[in-house]
Structures are given as structure tokens and as C-alpha cells.
């Protein structure tokens, strides 16, 4: 029995086993409302799998995932999204053949059923919302560009924008600054600070400077387990963490 909590996201004893291999092993993680949590760890630590479990892409073997005291385990992917969880993938997933405007429009949380989408009207409110989000993600001048023409970093922003337009309460970001230039990283850090207001964000990241800049709290994972948790300073000086990172 899982008791109700004040946390936005409360993960308890979450385990997933692939043919006996436990990619995520009894992980417990609590994220506050309005918190920006970064999950770090060496390759194969189970970070991406953890996000997959939260958003329903992978099904957990045991444990619970409570989001605003609602169990997400076993819920269909689209239902999890409709409950307010947005997920960005590691390789930018955008719609290459649609324009930036259309990419964002398709992500507007209206007309999500077959008939709703067939009779969906591009209202002034929708236009304004798209313009607003496009400005947030630094793409306001490129609305009519086909998304496949964007740079790698811009694609990352576009995907974040596609999440933002649905205004989720929990955003899961898998390596949002991978492959970005220094100035793009800077802009992304600003963007993340902005979007973290009023919602919870879980970020997976490798770039320690970037982590230091954005994280409220850091969780270190290793071999499917939580190794350490706390502020960046605390985690950096944790002996187990040092051993794992240097030992690699």
C-alpha cells in the first residue's frame, strides 16, 4: 500500500528485470513540486530506463510510480501524457517533414481523438500559444521552416517546445544538451530554468558543468541502483560516487 505524499513524483522500490538482468533495481526517488532534479551516472546505470518506466515506454516488473498520488504503472502511454507527464527522448524526436509551426500545432493538447483532430480548427488562441512557445525555444523566426532543416541543437529545443505547449506538470528530459555548442548550452540552461517554474523537471545529463548550473538536487545512479543523492557539492564529494566515476 502506497500512502499519499506531497511529492509531485514518488517512485518506490521500482524494479525492471530483462531476463533476469535488473536494469533498474529497487529505485526510490522523490521529486518535489517545482524541483529540477538531475540524474547522473555512468553508461548503463539505468537512467534512460528509469525515464522509460515513468512514461510507460517500458513496463516495470515491480514497485510503484505515483504522480500526484496517482499510480502511473500500467497506464497506457497516452494516458500518462494526458495526466501531465511530458518526455523528451535522447535523440531528438521531431517530425522532419512538418514545419516548426506544424510540429508545435500537432503537439497542442486539443483534438487528441480521431474525430477531434479531424475537425480541429487553428484558432487564434492556438496561434498565439504556438508563437509564445516558439519564442521560448528561440525558434520564433523559423516557424515555416521544415523541421528536418534545423540544426541538432535546434531540434532539441523544438522537442522541448513540443512538450511545453502541452503544459505538463512533470517534464522528463533525456540529455537535452547532447551535441550542443557552448552558446546553445547556455541558452538551454536558461530555458530549463524558465520551464522549471511551477513544474517538476527530471533531467538526465552527463555534462557536469551543465548539471552544476541547473540542478536543485542530484541523484547518482549506478548499476540500476541509487548510489547517492543530494546537492551537487555533497554528491561530488561522496566517496562511493568518486570511486564509481574514477574506477571507470
Amino acid at each position, binding site marked *: 500500500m502506497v500512502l499519499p505524499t506531497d511529492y509531485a513524483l514518488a517512485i518506490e522500490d521500482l524494479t525492471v528485470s530483462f531476463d533476469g538482468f535488473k536494469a533498474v533495481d529497487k529505485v526510490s526517488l522523490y521529486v518535489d513540486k517545482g524541483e529540477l532534479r538531475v540524474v547522473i551516472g555512468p553508461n548503463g546505470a539505468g537512467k534512460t530506463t528509469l525515464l522509460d518506466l515513468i512514461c510507460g515506454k517500458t513496463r516495470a516488473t515491480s514497485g510503484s510510480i505515483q504522480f500526484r498520488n496517482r499510480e502511473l504503472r500500467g497506464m497506457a502511454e*497516452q494516458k500518462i501524457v494526458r495526466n501531465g507527464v511530458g518526455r523528451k*527522448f535522447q535523440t531528438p524526436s521531431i517530425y522532419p517533414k512538418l514545419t516548426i509551426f506544424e510540429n508545435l*500545432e*500537432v*503537439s497542442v*493538447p486539443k483534438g487528441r481523438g480521431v474525430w477531434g483532430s*479531424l475537425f480541429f480548427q487553428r484558432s487564434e488562441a492556438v496561434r498565439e500559444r504556438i508563437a509564445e512557445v516558439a519564442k521560448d525555444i528561440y525558434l520564433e523566426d523559423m516557424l515555416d521552416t521544415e523541421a528536418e532543416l534545423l540544426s541538432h541543437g535546434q531540434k532539441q529545443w523544438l522537442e522541448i517546445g513540443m512538450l511545453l505547449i502541452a503544459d505538463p506538470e512533470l517534464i522528463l528530459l533525456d540529455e537535452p544538451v547532447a551535441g550542443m555548442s557552448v552558446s546553445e548550452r547556455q541558452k538551454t540552461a536558461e530555458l530549463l530554468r524558465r520551464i522549471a517554474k511551477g513544474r517538476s523537471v527530471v533531467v538526465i545529463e552527463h555534462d557536469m558543468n551543465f548539471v552544476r548550473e541547473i540542478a536543485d538536487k542530484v541523484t547518482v545512479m549506478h548499476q540500476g541502483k541509487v548510489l547517492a543523492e543530494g546537492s551537487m557539492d555533497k554528491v561530488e564529494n561522496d566517496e562511493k560516487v568518486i570511486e564509481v566515476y574514477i574506477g571507470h
Partner: protein
Amino acid sequence: MKSLLYDKAMGGRSGLIGMIVLAFILLLVFPVMFDTFRLNLMGRYLSLAFVAVALVLCWGYGGILSLGQGVFWGLGGYCMAAFLKLEAANNIANEAGTDQINALTTVGLPDFMDWNQITELPWFWYPFKSFPLTLALMFLIPTVLAYIIGVAMFKRRVSGVYFAIITQALCWIMELLFVTRQGWTGGINGITDLRTLLGWDIRTESAQTTIYFITVAAILMCIVIGRLVLQSKLGKLLVAMRDTEDRVRFSGYDVASFKTFIFCIAAAISALGGGLFVMNVGFMSPKLVTIEPSIYMVIFCAVGGRMSLIGAVYGTLVVSFGRTYFSEEFPNLWLFALGGVFILVTVVFPRGLAGMVDSIIAFVSNRIAKRTGQDKAAGQPPAKAAGVSASGGAT
């Protein structure tokens, strides 16, 4: 609203021009150029083009390759044939009036049932006594079948090659079903000797011309419906799903229901083609529901350009023409040539005839723009021009 009709149904200026050219060719050029026999041949080709148009929707945009689209086409055809056959069976006494004919067949019972010792009309043939009911079933049966397949496959995330193979198997099952249930379906001979529709003799020259025009009107209507679907948010979602399915799923959409929807629309459009085919030729055969015709239909679509509803019609006409003429001249080489064309198109011109036409238009308009020396037009980045032509071809 004028703008709604213009932008959404016609696809803007380039889409409207494409429609007008197609309508001009089908409604004026063909009837003037061809005698009734040839025009009827065109009517047959066009009734296959419905499937090509349907494939543009579900394959080109939805990314669902169906190698069994002929099944839905065939079911539509069989429904229409069943109605016409019952009418023919009812009129047999009035038409022939001789004792000899009456001795060979029972009034009100299709001849092939007589030959198979079936003495009473099977229950599922009864609805085909009514024309409105037949029309409804002609759409309903294939659409419901598509819905069942869609739910069964897409909910389980069967896609790509696996889905294609399953649809191909479906063709085979259908053929077996129609061939082996002789007494119910006319077996290998199919349903033949269809004569009148509500008392109107469909075998006369004037009737065949009229049916040709009905077929043209119907295909133009299907293109407009297709455009309306593609211009909606649902159309954009199809493209999105085709390219990045997971992103759509994790944007809160139930991907399976969208795939099922477009698969059902494709089935309904195909079925209409099947029904019109029967009116054009006066028979229906299980040979048309097998794997081969379904593959042909995919080739029609690929040659015409799988992103172009209008291109699909041209693709069907061109390949069917080729088939009729070359298969007579070089019966052994034709299949190799067809295979070659298919490979060539997919490798060299992935957007088919429509893509070629778009490139030519873009090239010519670029040259004109350069020659007239308009700074604005010449200075346009090539990407922009390509985008414009692509959207023209897309609709």
C-alpha cells in the same frame, strides 16, 4: 466558406490547377478521343485508381503498407455484383421468357447456385435485394473488416513489413474463400452475366458512357475527401506518426486509433472503386481479389507518386495502359519490365510521376524567374522553392 473550400479541399492554387487538369483530361479529352470501347477500358482503369488513391492516404501519408488493398476493393465489387446478379436472376423469366431458360435456372436464384444444388437463397444474400442496403453494405463490409484488422494489428503494434505480409495473407484467404464457396460466391468463375441496374441496361454503349462519367465524378470526389483529411490536423498527425511514431504516442495520442481510422477510410474508398468496376465490366471474379492485383495497385500508387492523390490516378492509367499494350506485344517481357519500372521508380524517383512533374515545374519557374531578372524571385533560397512544390505535389 470560400477560403475553406479553396484551401482545404483543393489544396490552394497548385492543387486547384492539378484538379482542373485531371478533370479536363478525364471529362473532356478522353470522351472526345476514345470510342465507347476504349472509354469503358478507361472506366475499368479508373475503378482501380480508387485503390491507388486509398494507398496514398494509408501508405504514402500513414506509412501503412497494405499489400491486400484489393480485398476491400473486391468486397465492394462482390456486394455490387450480388445486387446486380439478384436483379438478373429475377428478370430472367421476363427477359428470356422461354421454357428452356426457366428449366435451367430458378427465378430469383443466381444461376451458379442452381448449378451447385443450392435451392434457397442463403440468408446473407437477402440484403442485396435492396439497392440502398447494397450501397450501404458495399462501404460497410470492407470498412468493418478494415476496422477489425486495424484494431487487432495496430493495438498490438504490428507494423511495417509484418503488417504487409499479414494483409497479403488476407488476400489469399479471401481468394480461397470465394473460390471454394462455389454455391455462395460463384466460385472460380465469379459472378457473371450482370445486366441491369434497377432496370437500366448497363451493357449498352450509352450506359457505359454514363457509368464512365459516374466513375470520374466519384474519383474526383475521393480526391477531394482525401485532401480534406490530409489538410486537417489528423493529416499532419499521419505524417508525424509515419516518421516518428513514438513522439506522437508520447504527445498523448492513441496511435493505433489513428492508423485504424485511415485504414478504414482507405478501405471505403477502395470498396467504392470495386463497386464501380463491376458496373463498368459487368462481372466480378475471385481472380481480382488475389495477391497479384493487390501488388499491381501498390505499383500504381508508387509510379504515380505515393504522396500525391492526383498522381495515383495518372500512375494507374499509365501502368494499366502499359499492361494492356505491352503484355499483348511482349507477354514474356512485360512482368520483368513492370518489376524494373517499380524498382526504378522507388530508387530513382521516390516521389513518382508527381515528383517528376513538381521538379520540372520548379525548374521551369526558376528559369523564368531568373530570365525575367526579378531579384526577389531569383534570390529565393532553393529550399523554399522545393518546399512550395512539395506541398503542391503533396496534395
